[in-house]
């Protein structure tokens, strides 16, 4: 038989365990209390009985049977703390408050006994009460029995035992109830998490555990789990998106390649085209497709990863200086004025290779779109916010404000850039790199009119401050 769910929880089992320990402790305590108080009652009764017996023996030694008899009669009247029986040598009762000794008359020396006495209570009903007594043979051969009613003391012990037992039972019941409530509570909290896990396992990546706002460990666990699921969902989404994007984005360049090859084939068959030229063209087209593929893949991977891999801490000015060194001759060749303004001794935490590529992309763009006689400026500085900014300013035609958000999207190329070679992926990659570092890409107007050109563009890759 399977227990109800609540009884199978760890919390409930813990409750049971503690209850068992407690019950055992209570039983031990009870036993000890019973032994200790019970023993004490007997010891006291014995001492009192012995004292009474000694006193009576002294009276006997002084006044003989006669004196003892009188004393007994005298002491037997009224409240009777003691019970007496005095027998003569032959065992015949001389006097006494009870009918006969509960002990054999022939028993030698001192004899102790526990016995019951029949008494009449206030209502006239017969009750039997616990008693204890000592019997001794006096020097003259008479037998004296002195007993005491210990029912009251015994009742006290029984009361204590009963109280302890009752408390124990009560504690066990309360413990069971408390355990059940706590278990149900824990189970309810855990059930939310378990349900979420089950839902996610079932394929619902949008399932999230409920955070109740109690800021306790369950909320912490739920929050942690939700963060993990967010991350997972982003990654999965990124990957799926990457797959879709690659399929979608490559279809058009591949179609174009195919069309050109087909056209070339028709021309060659008609004897008009040069087969070698057609092949060279096809090769170049294929290279273009491959470049696109690589760029899309790089962007998709960055987006799917969520965070740039292998980040290290280095000097961003040094990285920019290296890139500047690579591109400066290209600027000079194109008749562009190139300047670099690099703040020394900054630090940034980033994946150096992809950051380099992003920066190269921005400079590539700037050089590509700035007409001869223009200027390109590379700058690395720390903003007052602590963020590290790589910015490239050019004096080209710029990007109108309404298009700035759009050019960052993949494959978006503005009309006036169609004549330039390129896939429209450059800035998308830069944006992906920025995001993968927790930063962002900012597009702004450049320096304005310059040598009759402008307004230019300022592209800034902003990375968060290194902690």
């Amino acid at each position, binding site marked *: 038989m399977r227990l109800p769910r609540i009884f199978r929880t760890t919390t409930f089992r813990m409750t049971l365990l503690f209850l068992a320990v407690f019950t055992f402790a209570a039983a031990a305590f009870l036993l000890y209390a019973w032994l200790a108080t019970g023993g004490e009652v007997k010891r006291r009764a014995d001492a009192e009985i012995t004292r009474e017996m000694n006193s009576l023996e002294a009276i006997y030694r002084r006044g003989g049977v006669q004196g003892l008899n009188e004393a007994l009669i005298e002491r037997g009247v009224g409240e009777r703390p003691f019970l007496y029986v005095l027998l003569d040598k032959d065992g015949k009762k001389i006097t006494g408050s009870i009918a006969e000794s509960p002990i054999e008359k022939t028993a030698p020396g001192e004899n102790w006994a526990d016995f019951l006495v029949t008494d009449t209570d206030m209502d006239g009903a017969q009750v039997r009460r616990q008693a204890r007594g000592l019997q001794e043979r006096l020097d003259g051969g008479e037998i004296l029995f002195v007993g005491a009613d210990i029912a009251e003391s015994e009742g006290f012990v029984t009361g204590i035992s009963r109280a302890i037992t009752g408390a124990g039972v009560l504690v066990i019941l309360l413990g069971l109830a408390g355990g059940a409530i706590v278990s149900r509570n824990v189970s309810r909290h855990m059930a939310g998490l378990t349900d979420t896990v089950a839902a996610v396992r079932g394929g619902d990546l949008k399932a999230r555990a409920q955070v109740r706002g109690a800021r306790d460990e369950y909320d912490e666990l739920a929050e942690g789990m939700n963060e993990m699921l967010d991350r997972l969902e982003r990654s999965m989404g990124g990957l799926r998106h990457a797959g879709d994007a690659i399929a979608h984005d490559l279809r058009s360049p591949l179609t174009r390649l195919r069309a050109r090859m087909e056209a070339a084939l028709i021309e060659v068959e008609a004897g008009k085209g040069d087969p070698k030229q057609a092949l060279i063209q096809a090769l170049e087209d294929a*290279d273009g497709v491959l*470049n696109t593929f*690589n760029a899309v893949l790089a962007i998709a991977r960055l987006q799917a990863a969520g965070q740039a891999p292998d980040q290290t801490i280095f000097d961003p000015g040094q990285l920019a200086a290296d890139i500047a060194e690579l591109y400066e*001759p*290209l600027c000079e060749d194109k008749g562009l004025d190139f300047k670099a303004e690099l703040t020394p001794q900054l630090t940034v935490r980033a994946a150096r*290779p992809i950051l380099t590529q992003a920066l*190269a992309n921005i400079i590539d763009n700037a050089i590509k779109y700035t007409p001869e006689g223009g200027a390109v400026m590379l700058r690395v500085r720390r903003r007052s916010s602590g963020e590290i900014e790589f910015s490239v300013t050019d004096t080209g035609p710029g990007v109108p404000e309404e298009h700035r958000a759009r050019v960052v999207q993949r494959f978006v190329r503005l009309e006036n850039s169609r004549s330039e*070679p390129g896939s429209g992926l450059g800035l998308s990659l830069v944006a992906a790199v920025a995001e993968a570092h927790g930063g962002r890409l900012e597009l702004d107007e450049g320096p304005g009119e310059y040598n009759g050109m402008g307004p230019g563009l300022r592209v800034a890759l902003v990375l968060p401050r290194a902690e």
Partner: protein
Amino acid sequence: MRILIIEDDFEAAEAMTRGLGEAGYDCTHAGDGEAGLDAARAGEFDVLIVDRMMPKLNGVQVVETLRREGDATPVLFLSALGEVGDRVDGLKAGADDYLVKPYAFPELIARVEALSRRRETGAVATTLKVGDLEMNLIARTVHRGETEIDLQPREFQLLEFMMRHAGQSVTRTMLLEKVWEYHFDPQTNVIDVHISRLRSKIDKGFDRQMLQTVRGAGYRLDP
């Protein structure tokens, strides 16, 4: 010059064998990692071209095993895995160069040439000499004939690489990787500009042009 191609894609291996054969190389093909490892152990090859993802033993395992056994044959990894991390893994395993699929054939030839040649120049040279061009690696000076040529540090590195691979085609990607240590394809013709600057320094005013442009591949420094 003997090359061992360890590649599970038969067609790719076939194309490589044909292309490298035309370039004057003698190629042997192994279809999986185990066969490749056996062949590499048995035969004397000058260069190994190893695919990374293969059945039985992957490329990294093959190269690691060979290196552990003391085999120093130059290895070129050929892989569809082209992320920086993948390249680092490959090079750490003991490969000498890394080419990402799909590749252009001139790129492969150029890299194989560079590798096969590297083996012969084992000794640490203090001067390089190609034709009448002479480079002193200690003093960091360059002369062509009697004329001293003044080079910027990066131009010096560029020329040094070209001189170490004199007579071989060197691609733009190789230059970007080996001289600048960048692993990406620039959209613009940055490398061409650097080469043309170097060319103007070492060839201008001389009858013979040493720095040649190789169509479809890159550049070559001829004696």
